[in-house]
């Protein structure tokens, strides 16, 4: 029987199949139909939106705006590529299989790099290309350069992520490299998001000064349409020289990443990844504390597991990072009724919800707990407490600030805070599906409906807080939503087998 080595096309097709199954889940036909319908809708919106624009309008597109949007998309792709590189290297655990097959290492790495690039480009392509199509329809065919530009940015992101992850393996070792790559990817995304909002955080005087600078000749040289900063966006709109430069850079980075990865493999540097699960440092370790009360035992265990797992910390804190602008705006623009209190109510609810999800759905030993002589309701209460206490602790200084503020309403604030934290924790615990902590790095997250209910509940308590302080009748609507969230979670909870 003859065997022929798998081709690059075969491996890329296999990677595409895996990526599609991760994305679409079990209901693939429904997913295809929904994606297609929405994409056609996007096209219709783009055709309609761009219909009134003339050629001159396209040529006068402000490069700074297009450039910022392009940079944002490029960093988002890089963030995604980091996560995919970590997943492909560490979590699929198929390196032994693929490298045990008679396939050249370069082919395998090229397929992985292409798969990472394709997946990270999927989101920007899905939302961006309808506008390029619409522009081409309206006579701006040069905007079809978005295709090669997007592909080049995706390949570049993939190469950078792959090289950085391999460097992390070398510097920090395989076990730490996985976590570091995931943290790096998440931080790239969050930092870029915050950087794009930085202008609105600045004090009024600073913003005025930056506006004046941008109108000055030196400012125009940096951020004007002719600035080299916007080369990427010029490539995207079909300027031949920047486009050629981008494609050449991406091709070189791709070749370098594949070459280095294949060489690292040949030297056995990546074998450590396959072996990393069974290695241990040994030693006596810190003494464990026996004899805590049941409450102390359960709460200490939950906190320990979160503090020791950077992915868990990221999962909990990233949403807060994304919502930080809300709080900053709330504190700064607090004319009349303060927006600080409602912002903290919402954020503390989100924090409690995130921690509760980890404590309940992330339970790694459900059989141990079910088999122990402790009432399930007691354990659930203790898990909820482990989620609520840190959120309360984070919010306490803000209650003190509210008490010191002239016309502050610390009691209303504290009551809404308790409602938000309690409701969010309850919603996540009621909707818990055990065993997901181990899947955290693979993108596991709370159920969409449960998350929606939790977020609505926290937002409801925030609205209730704002309405009560303002005062406004909206407080009653907020209270209704805040109280309704746990009821909805109770009704939507998964039923035991």
């Amino acid at each position: 029987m003859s065997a022929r080595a798998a081709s690059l096309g075969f491996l890329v097709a296999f990677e595409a199949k895996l990526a599609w199954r991760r994305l679409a889940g079990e209901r693939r036909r429904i997913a295809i139909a929904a994606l297609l319908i929405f994409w056609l809708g996007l096209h219709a919106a783009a055709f309609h939106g761009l219909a009134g624009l003339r050629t001159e309008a396209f040529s006068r597109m402000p490069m700074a705006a297009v450039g910022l949007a392009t940079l944002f998309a490029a960093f988002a792709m890089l963030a995604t590529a980091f996560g995919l590189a970590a997943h492909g290297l560490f979590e699929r655990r198929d390196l032994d299989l693929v490298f045990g097959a008679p396939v050249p290492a370069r082919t395998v790495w090229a397929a992985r790099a292409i798969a990472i690039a394709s997946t990270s480009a999927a989101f920007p392509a899905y939302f961006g290309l309808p506008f390029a199509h619409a522009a081409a329809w309206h006579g701006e065919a040069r905007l079809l350069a978005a295709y090669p530009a997007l592909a080049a940015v995706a390949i570049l992101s993939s190469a950078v992520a792959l090289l950085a992850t391999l460097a992390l393996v070398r510097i920090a070792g395989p076990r730490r490299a996985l976590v570091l790559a995931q943290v790096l990817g998440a931080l790239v995304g969050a930092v870029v998001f915050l950087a794009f909002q930085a202008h609105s955080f600045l004090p009024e005087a600073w913003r005025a000064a930056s506006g004046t600078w941008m109108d000055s000749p030196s400012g125009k040289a940096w951020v004007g349409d002719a600035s080299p900063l916007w080369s990427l966006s010029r490539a995207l709109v079909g300027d031949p020289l920047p486009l050629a430069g981008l494609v050449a850079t991406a091709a070189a980075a791709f070749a370098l990443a594949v070459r280095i990865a294949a060489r690292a493999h040949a030297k056995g540097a990546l074998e450590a990844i396959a072996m990393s699960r069974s290695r241990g440092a040994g030693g006596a370790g810190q003494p464990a504390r026996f004899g805590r009360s049941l409450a102390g035992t359960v709460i200490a265990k939950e906190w320990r597991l979160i503090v020791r797992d950077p992915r868990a910390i990221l999962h909990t804190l990233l949403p807060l990072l994304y919502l930080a602008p809300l709080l900053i705006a709330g504190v700064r623009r607090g004319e009349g009724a303060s927006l600080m209190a409602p912002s903290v109510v919402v954020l503390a609810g989100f924090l409690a919800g995130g921690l509760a999800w980890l404590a309940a759905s992330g339970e790694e030993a459900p059989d141990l707990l079910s088999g122990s002589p402790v009432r399930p309701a007691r354990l659930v209460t203790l898990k909820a407490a482990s989620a609520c206490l840190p959120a309360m602790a984070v919010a306490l200084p803000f209650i003190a600030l509210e008490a010191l503020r002239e016309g502050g309403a610390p009691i209303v604030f504290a009551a809404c805070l308790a409602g938000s934290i309690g409701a969010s924790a309850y919603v996540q615990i009621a909707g818990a599906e055990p065993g997901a902590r181990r899947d955290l790095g693979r993108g596991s997250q709370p159920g969409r409906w449960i998350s929606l209910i939790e977020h609505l509940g926290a937002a409801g308590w925030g609205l209730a807080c704002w309405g009560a302080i303002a005062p406004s009748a909206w407080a009653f609507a907020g209270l209704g939503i805040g109280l309704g969230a746990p009821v909805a979670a109770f009704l939507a909870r998964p039923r035991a087998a």
Partner: protein
Amino acid sequence: MSAALEIRGLAKRFGATRAVDGLDLEVPAGELFALLGPNGAGKTTTLRLVAGLLAPDAGSIRVAGHDVAADPLAAKRILAFLPDEPQLYAKLRPLEYLAFVAGLWGLEPGEAGGRARELLALLGLEGTQGDYVETYSRGMKQKLALAGALLHDPAVMILDEPLTGLDAASARLVKDLLAARAASGRTVILSTHILEVAERVATRLAILSRGRVVAGGTMAQLRAGSDRTLEDIFLELTRESP
């Protein structure tokens, strides 16, 4: 004196599948009892029902006289259950895991700490106390889970495929440990698909097929005077009808 385990008319369905179908079983105290059966015979479901992790559709289970449905906490206080796939906390160290188990069972701190260290030493894990559980091999995880199950010195141990993932020396150690517990009057009930293990270590056996006990007793009783091996008996009793 009541039996360590008494099951009457136990039934459990998952959708259209009858995992356990009117099962009757009695295990006297001080036995090392092996539950055998082909894949899908209902071994794991039976053990999970006994441990109170699943609710039966019909029938009753009594552990040392405690009805598992009516008084689950009393039954769980004297039970230990070891699942086939060890369930541990990746980011805890072994002693921290055992301290958590001790907290759940409300054990006296000094005694539990000493016993935890003894068990880690006995199972060859004392040199890895500084490691997180996530760095353990499959066999080490199995041994740590076993240490957790032994920590409260349970009167009845329920073990689902306890030798999976263990090397020859560890498997021997665990078999000796379980036999010693049975000899000291404790009861050990295990499921296994390795017939040789059941034949050599179990004092009594039951063979399950399609959720029912199709044969049970000591090896001598199963052989009924013939010179057939356990494998012969097992294959004959569990052969699927065409």
